[in-house]
């Protein structure tokens, strides 16, 4: 049992999930096109199919090259030591600033260019803030 676990590929279900969406929508796309010859719907369906296909193929490619992660296994080995799951940032003001910049751009589209310019400046500075901040943050 444990042996099986260790060789069981990771991310497999995730990959198949995305690929099955891609496959289903692809079938729908073909049926729809030959039934209707209508452009807009076919294009949108095709795009939706690609949306599943692109990440799905990537995951599938990986799933054949990686071992199962603990969350992929039915019976994972209990962790022997502390596990670092990932880095999670502390609180940050920049998402708020970034969003206010976006809102300003949006309002600029309605009320005038000066709001748009202001928004662009705010968004750029928020991006800078974001980037600088990414060096900090703790791990869990």
């Amino acid at each position, binding site marked *: *049992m*444990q042996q099986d676990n260790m060789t069981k590929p990771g*991310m497999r*279900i*995730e990959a198949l*999930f*995305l690929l*099955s*969406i891609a496959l*289903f*929508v692809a079938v*729908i796309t073909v*049926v*729809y096109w030959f*039934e*209707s010859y*209508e452009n*807009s*719907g076919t294009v*949108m*369906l095709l795009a*939706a199919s690609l*949306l*599943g296909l692109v990440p799905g193929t990537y995951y599938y490619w990986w799933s054949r090259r990686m071992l199962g992660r*603990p*969350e*992929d*296994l*039915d*019976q*994972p080995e*209990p*962790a022997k030591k*502390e*596990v*670092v*799951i*990932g880095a*999670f*940032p*502390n*609180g*940050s*003001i*920049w*998402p*708020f600033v*970034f*969003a*206010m910049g*976006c*809102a300003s751009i*949006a*309002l600029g*589209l*309605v*009320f005038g260019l000066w709001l748009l310019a202001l928004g662009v400046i705010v968004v750029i500075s928020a991006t800078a803030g974001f980037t600088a901040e990414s060096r900090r943050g*703790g*791990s*869990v």
Partner: protein
Amino acid sequence: MTTLEEKALTSQEVSAELTDVKSRHFEPSGLLNWLTSTDHKMIGKSYLITSFMFMLLGGALALVIRLQLASPNNSLVTLHQYNELFTMHGSIMIYLFVGPFAFGGLANYIVPLQVGAPDMAFPRLNLLSYWLYLSGGLIMVLGFFVTGGAADFGWVAYAPLSNAVNSPGAGPDMWIVALLLTGFSAIFTGVNIIATVFYLRAPGLTMFRLPIFTWNMVVVAILILIAFPVLTSALVMLYADRHFGTHIFEVQGGGVPVLWQNLFWFFGHPEVYILALPFFGVVTEIIPVFSRKPLFGYKGMLFATLAIAALSTGVWAHHMFTTGVVLLPFFSLMTYLISVPTGVKFFNWIATMWRGHIRFDTPMLYAVGFLITFLGGGLSGMLLAAPPLDFFEHDTYFVVAHFHNVVMALFLAAVGALVYWYPKMTGRMMREGIGKISFWFMFIGANVTFIPQYILGLRGMPRRIVTYPPGIGWHFLNELSTIGSFMIAVGALFLVINFWVSWRKPIPAGNDPWDGHTLEWYTTSPPPHHNFDRLPIVRSERPVWDVKYGLEGAAIPGHSNSNPPSSVKDKDHADNAAG
């Protein structure tokens, strides 16, 4: 409770331990926390409260609409005001309440807890989503205060009514940019949910052990990624038509107005399931817990969800049957087919209750209320799926009744979700008594409001009309509908009172007030920063149940019991599981 906790801890000795980061964590309070906290629980609560506020606003607009329609030849509001009212009612409820409440609020709070993650995968993106959503929402609502008023072309904004000639002014533009902002917010949240579930699950929590609520949120996230970019690009085109002189939706310049309907409904129908699936998930969490049984047909439920989502990408033109330019049989068949997985879900829910020990605490009451109300909406949906029938029901109050029946069911489930997870979020119980009063007002109100509208639709009352003459048999039913809508409002008032009472006089909830099944009930209420100090070993889709009812082997590594544990006395169990 104490004994259970101890039992849980002793079975935990082999579980993964998490690094304690509390010492490194800095948490501001109050306003600054709202602005800056990247904790998914804080963002989730912000989403829930904000969307609840928008719901109250949208509901208030609906009450004005109902008052206007309560009597014939009424002139409570002007024609223009009425158009603004129903446009903004629909827009607020669809774009700012139901969706953000579900995938912004509930998913944000619950999904990381259910998968045993410390936070969402991209916490700062998550915070950005929230602020994009709130600023978009405010911009949309502020449209009421500019010259010319808010958008007044219906929440579907059919071209060419939504062009610069027919709908001039800043209000419609604000509606467009608001949807751009909230659209990006939804897309970011979708990405976040998928990444969280794919990468941050607890050890042993395979995809086929995920709680159905979390699964549904993954599917919803995929649908968001399919649907919202289409809406966003359609809105950009609409904006270009209005301001840059393009003619994408204008016949005069060689454009195609029907293209808008195609684009909009390609977003719009998956959107319906973006709204519905989270609440299917909520009900799927509540019913097994209060029936004290595992979910019947877990895998069937899962594939039903996937089937609904997949089919929902191919049904958009059933909103366009009467345009005369769509492929009727194709869309009709696809629409019928969606009822099959939905039916499977219903039978699974019923079979979960079957021979259970059902406790009718408030969340369960809401869940059953959802089942009963949603079935009405589902059946009338079947009647609408036939193009010939749609020809006379389309754009009448029959359709209005159909989708309100559906969304009122979702609303009941939403309140159920609030009551169900409120103890986890706050550490307090809501009052059962007030909750039940609130439920009965909402449930009866929902049906009194919308069942008369079915009949009105069959009698030929079109939607979006501001008034009607007396003596054609519409008055009484409209009056009834208005009374019902105020009953819903009273129910909502009791809900608010319930919040207030629990805030003033808290009843401590403990970690696991409902005898829950999934990981969120394993941590404290409210959970600490980064959620879990320890995680139980996951060997089924009911890890916390396994710990509590602790069947031998459930927590022992190497024991291959992937089926949910059952009562030891139950000899039939093995047969059933095998069957």
